[in-house]
């Protein structure tokens, strides 16, 4: 019960910070719409739906990366990790709360991105929406873990894409192919791994 309350308090804090600073979500929205517009003009006429779907997934992954680079900015710039890590709460609550906030930002970006994709390219089926929702869970889990790891590094702007993009390849494979079972498996494995290893990631930030 206390764990859930800790996660709730930390996630509320992250959403409040974004609501007031308005730094992450507007950038994600602008980026994803601009990327889809560029892809619309770049894709040759007569290209199939699968090609368009591939571009949607590329746009979503890079939009997520944009959000993830901002995920721990307040903690890094205001040295908040020390205060959070010293608290007697379970450290995985910090990861879970941050991952939930990232998930909320991704969902908000996709509320705009998916209709924009439908307008620029073709309609979106229920299977694609389900795949995007499942992919968001994996992206938030893995990306938040790597985001925390990157905070400690000197070349953090470089480190996060280098860590995250290779791990996003299976998400794109599952998403473009519509393999929902594969995305469920990816989510299950990486949510557990990230939840269990976050303690060690923040042990010496």
């Amino acid at each position, binding site marked *: 019960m*206390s764990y859930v*309350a*800790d996660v709730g*308090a*930390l996630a509320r*804090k992250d959403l*409040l*910070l974004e609501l*007031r*600073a308005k730094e992450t979500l507007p950038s994600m929205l602008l980026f994803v719409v601009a990327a889809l517009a560029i892809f619309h003009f770049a894709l040759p006429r007569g290209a199939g739906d699968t090609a368009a779907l591939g571009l949607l997934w590329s746009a979503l992954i890079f939009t997520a990366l944009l959000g993830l680079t901002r995920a721990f900015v*307040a903690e890094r710039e*205001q*040295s*908040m990790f*020390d*205060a*959070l*890590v*010293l*608290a*007697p*709460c379970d450290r995985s609550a910090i990861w879970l709360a941050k991952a939930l906030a990232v998930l909320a930002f991704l969902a908000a970006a996709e509320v705009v991105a998916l209709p924009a994709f439908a307008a620029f390219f073709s309609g979106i089926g229920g299977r694609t929406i389900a795949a995007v929702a499942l992919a968001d869970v994996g992206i938030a889990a893995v990306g938040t873990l790597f985001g925390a790891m990157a905070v400690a590094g000197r070349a953090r702007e470089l480190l996060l894409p280098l860590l995250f993009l290779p791990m996003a390849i299976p998400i794109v494979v599952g998403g473009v192919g519509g393999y929902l079972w594969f995305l469920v498996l990816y989510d299950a494995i990486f949510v557990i791994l990230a939840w269990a290893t976050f303690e060690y990631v923040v*042990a*010496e930030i």
Partner: protein
Amino acid sequence: MIAARGLAKRFGDRRVFRDVELALGDGEFLLVTGPNGSGKTTLLRVLAGLAAPSAGALELPARHTIGYLGHSPQVYRELTALENLTLFGRLYRVPERAERVGMLLERFGLWEVRHERVSTFSRGMRQRLGLCRVLLHEPSLLLLDEPYNALDAQGAELLDGILDEPRTLVVATHEPQRVEHRATQRLAFA
């Protein structure tokens, strides 16, 4: 409270400190002095359990009994003073949280601005709020890194009052004059 034998810390090839020996009992005051970059902050982070020593043995009290204030006040700028303390009160399991938060805000002269965002505060007000944060859970070991930074005369007097309370203290400063008379142990970095 704290026992350290042969404590050392390195970052790659760079040695920050070595052979630090400490035996700090309840209620003692360790004053750590030295110029900028001499290793004071790193030692405090090691004593807070936030950084692992490269060598040596270290005994520390439980995490929830430690209060650590680093170089910066460690409060969220886009949250209000009240929201910051309420969040950390929850995470630090502070009983009767609202009363404790209210009492500290009153004591440090921040009650009137409790609903204002920290980004509108002066550096001294942020430092006061940082002190409120580390005192929230009534730690028995307080680790303070340059705690007089940015405090005005009134804020410094409030901090003096905190340092006079019965608890174990480790204070790192490059201006030791203000606290030297309280120290029961000294550690000077070159």
